[in-house]
């Protein structure tokens, strides 16, 4: 691990990152970058390609980054903007999600069919709302933080999230039903 990353962890004076920090940065952030790309694009190979592009760009900009928080913010921002650009260029068809590796068992039991259905419904959201939902629920960012990452007004982000949730709730109830009012 490079000195800069070690200093960032120890909270000492920041200094630019260098190539020695790169391996540690990949190991630490590959899951985040790949997951944002995958949840947005819903295409495994496209997500890997995009994630590789993001890390390549990170390598070129290492000297401009000075702390772990800065790297995290930069990666989220670049990944999100690349996703939106990619979405503008082509329409991604939904692919079977069976080939996607499942991570370690989550703390809360998850219904795999419901998860698949939800991912599919998220994939149908408009691009700006989809990336906001991914950042909100994958990265647990607040609307303020999402607004900073996406360069959008906070009010816009809040409205996009509200509309997206309303759509998802309606679609989910329509598809799987909700006799006990669980999702209302």
């Amino acid at each position, binding site marked *: 691990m490079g000195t800069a990353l070690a200093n960032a962890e120890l909270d000492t004076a920041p200094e630019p990152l260098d190539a020695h920090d790169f391996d540690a940065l990949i190991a630490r952030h590959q899951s985040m970058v790949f997951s944002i790309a995958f949840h947005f694009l819903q295409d495994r190979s496209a997500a890997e390609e995009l994630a590789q592009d993001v890390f390549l760009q990170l390598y070129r900009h290492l000297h401009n980054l000075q702390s772990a928080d800065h790297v995290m913010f930069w990666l989220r921002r670049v990944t999100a903007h690349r996703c939106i650009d990619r979405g503008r260029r082509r329409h991604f068809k939904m692919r079977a999600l069976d080939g996607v*590796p499942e991570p370690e068992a989550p703390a809360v039991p998850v219904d795999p069919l419901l*998860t698949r259905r939800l991912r599919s419904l*998220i994939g149908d959201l408009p691009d700006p709302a989809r990336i906001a939902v991914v950042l909100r629920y994958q990265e647990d960012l607040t609307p303020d933080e999402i607004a900073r990452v996406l360069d959008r007004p906070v009010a816009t982000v809040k409205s996009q999230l509200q509309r997206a949730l309303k759509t998802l709730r309606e679609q989910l109830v329509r598809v799987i039903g909700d006799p006990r009012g669980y999702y209302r």
Partner: protein
Amino acid sequence: MKALDEELRGALRRLQPPEGFADRVRQRVESEGRFARHQPTRATGAMRWALAATLVVAAGGGLWYRAEEQRRLQGEEAKRQVLLSLSIAGTKLKAIEMKVNHGEER
């Protein structure tokens, strides 16, 4: 509402990238480094521009020199023709003068 939030968190939890992802990123970084070494730097780019400018100036100078040389040769040819004409005219005048003088002597 909370139920949907939880379901979304579950559906959008982080996933591990395909195996070998980090190695593939490193390979791309290395191949880009090799490619970058063969790319023209700013200095070599400037040298190329300087070479191109020198060639343009040399070619322009050559064309100008050739045009000047052609004009000089044309001028010399015109001068030679004028001198020849004057020489012919002088010879003819001399012949006429001799005829006139010869007539007067008779």
